[in-house]
């Protein structure tokens, strides 16, 4: 059954073009992907990300449990800090990538991808037997609004007496009143810009969204849909589960080695990843630039000059506001070096490309 977020009526009211995304009815765009993309880079954009899942972990063993679930080092967190991490299965494939919010050593919030909520909750529950923890899937109780762009702080500061400057990059506060709405606010996002993700009770979400939207009008705040969310995250080199990440691809292959800490306590998938690192990878995620004409899309084959398949495009675009056709692909390891010649199969024609950095934008985080 297709689901709606608490903001469905709001999207309809503002003429959002509604599509089915991972089982959710959400707007792909309002005014147009290009305009929304540029607004986030120049000023600010507001996104409905209420489809994301919220899973709470509570109990004496919470820190140990979450640390065992994910590949990054959860023990390094202090209270109110946020951590990005892949979560692996026993074969070293990625069950999901998520944000870990530490309230304290005995309480964590895990924010997971919409399409994976049930899979993640079942997986986490199946791993919890030897830990004194309680898991709660609160996904339906929360809405989530992302306010992203260089003007995000200025816009949001008008609506709260909380000094937002105090929330540093990848930190959060669980006690921020925005207007009359109690919110959890983190300085996080998925666009490569400064900004916030704001968690709020489902029934307060529409009110909060309108409040921020109105307060942002004079800053050229635009409503932004899933289309711009994808071009922005892609341009900033951020991976999307289902494209760059999946159950059968390891985080090392997905070039997320920075978020895999192998020299620490045991975690699920560690043995396989340690072995993979020692023996060397057989494939890796790389960026590329198309030299010939066309646009490489998700799922297109990547080939060598003689037409042998050497990989697959995970995401590709001609980025808004540029004439450059670029992408990210998972390729055999011998093709991983910058400037290597590769070919993308576009409608049965081999189009020349070269390996490039997989981030096409310099992120502007406020650190």
């Amino acid at each position, binding site marked *: 059954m297709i689901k709606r977020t608490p903001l469905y009526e709001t999207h309809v009211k503002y003429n959002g073009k509604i599509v089915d995304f991972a089982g959710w009815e959400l707007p*792909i*765009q309002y005014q*147009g*992907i*290009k305009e929304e993309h540029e607004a986030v880079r120049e000023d600010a954009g507001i996104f409905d990300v209420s489809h994301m899942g919220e899973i709470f972990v509570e109990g004496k063993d919470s820190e140990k449990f979450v640390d065992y679930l994910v590949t990054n080092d959860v023990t390094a967190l202090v209270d109110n800090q946020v951590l990005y991490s892949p979560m692996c299965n026993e074969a070293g494939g990625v069950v999901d990538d998520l944000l870990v919010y530490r309230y304290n050593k005995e309480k964590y919030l895990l924010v997971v991808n919409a399409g994976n909520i049930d899979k993640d909750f079942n997986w986490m529950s199946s791993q919890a037997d030897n830990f004194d923890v309680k898991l709660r899937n609160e996904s339906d109780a929360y809405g989530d609004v992302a306010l992203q762009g260089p003007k995000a702080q200025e816009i949001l500061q008008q609506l709260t007496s909380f000094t937002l400057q105090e929330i540093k990059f990848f930190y959060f506060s669980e006690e921020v009143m925005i207007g009359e709405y109690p919110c959890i606010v983190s300085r996080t996002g998925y666009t490569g810009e400064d900004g916030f993700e704001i968690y709020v009770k489902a029934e307060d979400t529409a009110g909060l969204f309108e409040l921020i939207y109105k307060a942002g009008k004079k800053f050229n705040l635009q409503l932004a849909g899933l*289309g711009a969310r994808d*071009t922005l995250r892609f341009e900033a080199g951020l991976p999307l589960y289902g494209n760059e990440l999946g159950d059968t691809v390891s985080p090392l292959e997905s070039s997320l080695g920075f978020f895999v800490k192998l020299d620490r306590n045991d975690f699920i998938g560690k043995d396989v990843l340690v072995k993979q690192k020692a023996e060397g990878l057989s494939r890796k995620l790389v960026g590329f630039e198309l030299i010939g*004409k*066309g*646009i490489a*899309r998700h799922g297109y084959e990547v080939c060598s000059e003689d037409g042998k398949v050497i990989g697959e495009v995970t995401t590709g*675009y*001609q980025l*808004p506001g540029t004439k450059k*056709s670029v992408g990210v692909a998972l390729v055999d390891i011998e093709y991983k070096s910058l400037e290597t010649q590769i070919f993308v199969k576009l*409608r049965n024609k081999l189009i020349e490309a070269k390996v490039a950095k997989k981030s096409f934008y310099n992120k502007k985080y406020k650190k």
Partner: protein
Amino acid sequence: MVKEGLLYAKSHEWIEVDGKEGKVGISDYAQHLLGDIVFVELPEEDAEIDKEDSFGVVESVKAASDVYMPVTGKIIEINEELEDEPELLNKDAYKNFIMKIEILDESQLDDLLTKEQYEAYIETIEHE
């Protein structure tokens, strides 16, 4: 917006008939559905392509869509402006044709929709 005087295919291409020749493009409805157009793959001149076969691809930021021959024809001119400025299709889908063809089977024009028929057709698909 549907322009008077053109014939339309259900796959949202238009043809402006001038004797044995015709200009072909995509409808305003089609450009609107696609969103920001960033690339147009044009056909080869002199190619003969059958009715309802793909003659090229129009790509927006989000997706690639084939475009189809409204009638069987031979490509006699392509609009090369679209190679550098594909967004012209968003600006005015009727002024900016994709190609000119020689119509090889004029009887096929009878299968196409008039302005009124095409408007009614859009109505029905919008309410599906």
